[in-house]
């Protein structure tokens, strides 16, 4: 055996997967088409955001890398939706793309038990019902006990700019061919998805006097629970607006879009529409907002967030130049659409293991998601589970009540997806329990038990919990405006920062700790109420359905439900209930059958 685990692909999923495996003691090989493109931020130069920021913190709490990478390379930091409620606020940072990618590669290179190799995987090697290695374009056969596939947008990737198209996964980077055909040949289903990215223009060609400036927040709260507080000079973003002239240019040329002309068959994300989609679907709007984001401190390329497009370059130039402040913008890279193969993820178990082949795991955009954070968290889980599989241990599956990661993977493997799947807070039933600042409380112990999170993380967590209790005790012993301080803080308009004058001991704790304690106090009653629902959820997840369960032996199941159950093979009654279109009566039948099997 050459390796314990092989990870195919060096994007955000591949990075987490290979680090998790090697840190958990598996000898790991990461194979990528290009060693120069590890950890690329192919689209926007930012990490985090609503729900996504929570994912990053969860990845970090389990012992993943993304939080560290962004903490080291951010050039702007913000907390979003501070006033919308703690359950939905999240950190977002603008990254220096080049530093990010470089640091990712350095981290991989420095990792013990992890090798990097440049080649393209074109086929898997199979023995019986297990994968035992990969074959590459240059003819290598490399054996391993487990393989994690994280091919992103490269599998049979094709980019489009107006009439122009090319077999690429990113502009100028060759797609990955061969593996898709091999997978289909073996019996995997694949389908097409589409996504896109806007143009990058030269910072020096913009008229900043006519743009709105948007600065970052101070202080910076690190993404990683490991990172000490730090200060850093921040770069601003800028805001511009499209106008009626912009929209007219787009409408007049819409027939030249490969999307509207029918050349692209893959479905694109509704939540991240191209500018032509926005103009066509919302004809009454007289402007759309554009965020101009730096690609990094060492480059003059800037990213035009909100202007993704697949229109021809002459049209792109025309509509960009119609925007105030961008009249003389010089396009350095055009916007383009990319269409690629993904594996409908209902072919996977909640461990992200394939139902078809033992030892094979899929993660990231290959599973139909979009976004660096969504990819990273799957990479981490697939890596963890590949390593656990190698050790002969049970997989780690996070519940919907434990983490956004659990929600994301459960949605994918239970319901599948028709468009690139992005995380939203509204997808989580128990989002009050999934705050970004509690990710360590929810997950670090788990990460430690599987051998991924370090002992020092657990110690830090214990310190944090102790401090929060201390703050609560201080509040309880003091009164403010004739009320107990703890009770006083429950009022929506009260802010713990305003209590420091009256209770100076609070100043001994960090702002982050004070803030978290305040949220704990304010939401206490609601979280207790939600806990009742969570208990019920946990109970139903605990009613396991054996993997070998024979649905055909249950004539009383409705035939529609039977087909769905056979395809998804849910691990529990809870998961079975979430399959769309499964009837309550079929769940009752299942319960009866499971009980009968117990007696046998």
């Amino acid at each position: 055996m050459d390796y314990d685990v092989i990870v195919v692909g060096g994007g955000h999923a591949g990075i987490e997967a290979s680090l998790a495996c090697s840190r958990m003691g598996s000898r790991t090989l990461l194979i990528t088409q290009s060693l120069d493109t590890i950890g690329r931020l192919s689209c926007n130069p930012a990490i985090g955001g609503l729900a996504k920021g929570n994912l990053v913190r969860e990845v970090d709490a389990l012992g993943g890398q993304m939080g560290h990478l962004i903490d080291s390379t951010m050039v702007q930091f913000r907390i979003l939706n501070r006033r919308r409620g703690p359950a939905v606020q999240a950190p977002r940072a603008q990254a220096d793309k080049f530093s990010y990618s470089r640091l990712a590669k350095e981290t991989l290179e420095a990792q013990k038990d992890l090798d990097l190799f440049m080649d393209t995987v074109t086929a898997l090697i199979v023995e019986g019902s297990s994968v035992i290695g990969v074959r590459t374009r240059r003819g290598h056969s490399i054996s391993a006990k487990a393989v994690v596939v994280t091919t992103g947008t490269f599998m049979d990737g094709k980019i489009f700019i107006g009439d122009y198209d090319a077999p690429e996964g990113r502009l100028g980077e060759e797609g990955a061919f061969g593996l898709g055909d091999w997978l289909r040949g073996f019996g995997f289903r694949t389908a097409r998805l589409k996504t896109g990215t806007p143009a990058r223009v030269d910072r020096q060609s913009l008229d900043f006097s006519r743009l709105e400036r948007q600065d970052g927040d101070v202080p910076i709260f690190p993404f990683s629970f490991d990172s000490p507080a730090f200060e850093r000079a921040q770069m601003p973003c800028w805001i511009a607006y499209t106008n009626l002239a912009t929209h007219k240019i787009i409408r007049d040329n819409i027939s030249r879009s490969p999307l509207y002309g029918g050349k692209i068959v893959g479905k694109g994300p509704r939540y991240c529409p191209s500018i032509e989609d926005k103009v066509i679907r919302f004809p009454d709007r007289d402007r759309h907002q554009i965020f101009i984001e730096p690609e990094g401190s060492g480059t003059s390329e800037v990213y035009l967030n909100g202007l993704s497009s697949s229109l021809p370059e002459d049209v792109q130039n025309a509509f960009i130049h119609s925007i105030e402040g961008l009249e003389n913008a010089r396009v350095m890279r055009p916007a383009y659409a990319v269409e690629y193969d993904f594996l409908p993820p209902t072919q996977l178990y909640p461990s992200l293991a394939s139902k078809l082949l033992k030892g094979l795991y899929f993660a990231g955009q290959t599973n139909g998601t979009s976004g660096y954070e969504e990819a990273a968290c799957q990479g981490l889980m697939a890596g963890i589970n590949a390593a656990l599989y190698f050790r002969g241990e049970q997989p780690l599956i996070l519940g919907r009540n434990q983490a956004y990661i659990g929600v994301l993977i459960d949605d994918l493997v239970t319901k599948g997806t028709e468009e690139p799947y992005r995380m939203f807070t509204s997808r989580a039933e128990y989002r009050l329990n999934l705050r970004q600042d509690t990710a360590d409380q929810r997950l670090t112990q788990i990460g430690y038990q599987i051998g991924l999170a370090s002992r020092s993380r657990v110690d830090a967590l214990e310190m944090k919990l102790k401090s929060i209790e201390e703050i609560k005790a201080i509040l309880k012993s003091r009164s403010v405006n004739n009320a107990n301080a703890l009770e006083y803080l429950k009022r929506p308009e009260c802010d713990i920062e305003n209590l420091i004058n009256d209770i100076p001991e609070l100043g001994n704790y960090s702002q982050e700790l004070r803030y978290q304690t305040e949220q704990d106090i304010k939401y206490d009653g609601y979280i207790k109420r939600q806990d009742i629902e969570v208990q019920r959820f946990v109970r139903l997840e605990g009613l396991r359905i054996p993997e070998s369960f024979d649905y055909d032996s249950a004539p009383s199941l409705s035939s529609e439900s039977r087909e769905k159950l056979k395809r998804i093979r849910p691990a529990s009654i809870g998961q079975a209930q979430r399959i769309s279109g499964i009837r309550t009566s079929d769940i009752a039948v299942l319960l009866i059958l499971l009980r009968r099997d117990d007696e046998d």
Partner: protein
Amino acid sequence: MKSFDTNDMIYALATPRARGALAVFRASGEGCIEALSKVFSPAGKLRDCPTNTCIYGRLLDIDQVVVNVYRNGHGYTGQEAFELMCHGSLSAFDMISAKLEELGFRAAMGGEFTMRAFLSGKMDLTQSEAVQDIVNSDSPISQKQAFSKLQGSLFKAIEAFKSTLLDILAPIELQLDYAQDDIEDEFGFPYSRLEALIKDIDALAATYRTSPLVQEGARVVLAGPVNAGKSTLFNLLLKSDRAIVSPIKGTTRDYLEAPCLIDGHKVRLFDTAGLRQSEDDLEKQGIQRSRLVIEDADLVVYLSPDIQDLESQCESWIRVQSRCDESVSDGPFLKLSCITGQGLEELCHVISSRLGSLVETCDGMMIQSARQAQGLHEASLCLKRAIETSEIGLDLSAGHIGNALRCLGELVGETSSDEMLERIFSSFCVGK
């Protein structure tokens, strides 16, 4: 998502919903005894008693009751359970049901106790029975099942609530799922829309309590002169010999009442004393009581063999020329022979269509089951909480609205989070 749980607290009235000396409520599920003890005195005695004991006490503010306690592993369902014996009055039923729901119990689906008994190994039953019952009782009101106008309009009303709620929730979730600067639309919390919706939902839910017509059955009274065949018809409709029938005039001295179904309508059928001048004190009293019953009736069926008599009666009554097998005479009235059965089917049909139109006068719809009423109550409660919490955090508020959607969804079909996102993306221009 409609959740199927086998351990939460459920209750049901185990005896018929009718007046009687005693009635029994049954409840099962983890924590049910602890929950009941919160409204029981002496609370400690109930909470701490061993399994298979009877505890006498008071259900606070409601009734004196006896509770049979079963700890986990005992009793019918094999779960922690109790049976509660109370006095058999309709108002006690309503109050006890309301109290149990307040404590976190939900109304059991038909067959659910049996299902649990089977699952905990307490009984051996033909599997299909319990499952079939659950299917029957649990099916949401669907378009397909909207066989009556009544159900059809109810379905549409609840669907409309759901759709309004999605419209209300979409901009809120948009605020939560996107950063403030990414959204160009102004946002204000939709207090007035929510309040209007709560009012509508409450109004519909209230039809449950105010519709004894549907709940307990419409009061259909058989009236007419002595020997018109009222008691014979009464027995025919009941399909049993409930009333004494004889050729002697004035056999029925007092009115009789019995529940029955006429063409699917729940009916409380009354047989009354024949109306005539009488010197008999007892009969006079009986006739007086019959007149009161007739005044209270939702529908009167007046039987008489005499056409002139029929013509002089109230036009809103169903007037039936009875004993048609004996003498046939022409007239505009329905003809009935209780001996040959001639006209019976037609009479039932007329009664049923009159009852149908009676019910429809209540704004075209009405809540018909405890499950529907409970779903609406819960939805309304969630929306009130959404308003209360709007100042604390939009995330809390949105959670409550989401719960309200789920409550409505359990009545007419679930709302998936994808539907929610679809509503956001189709209504708002978002996306960086």
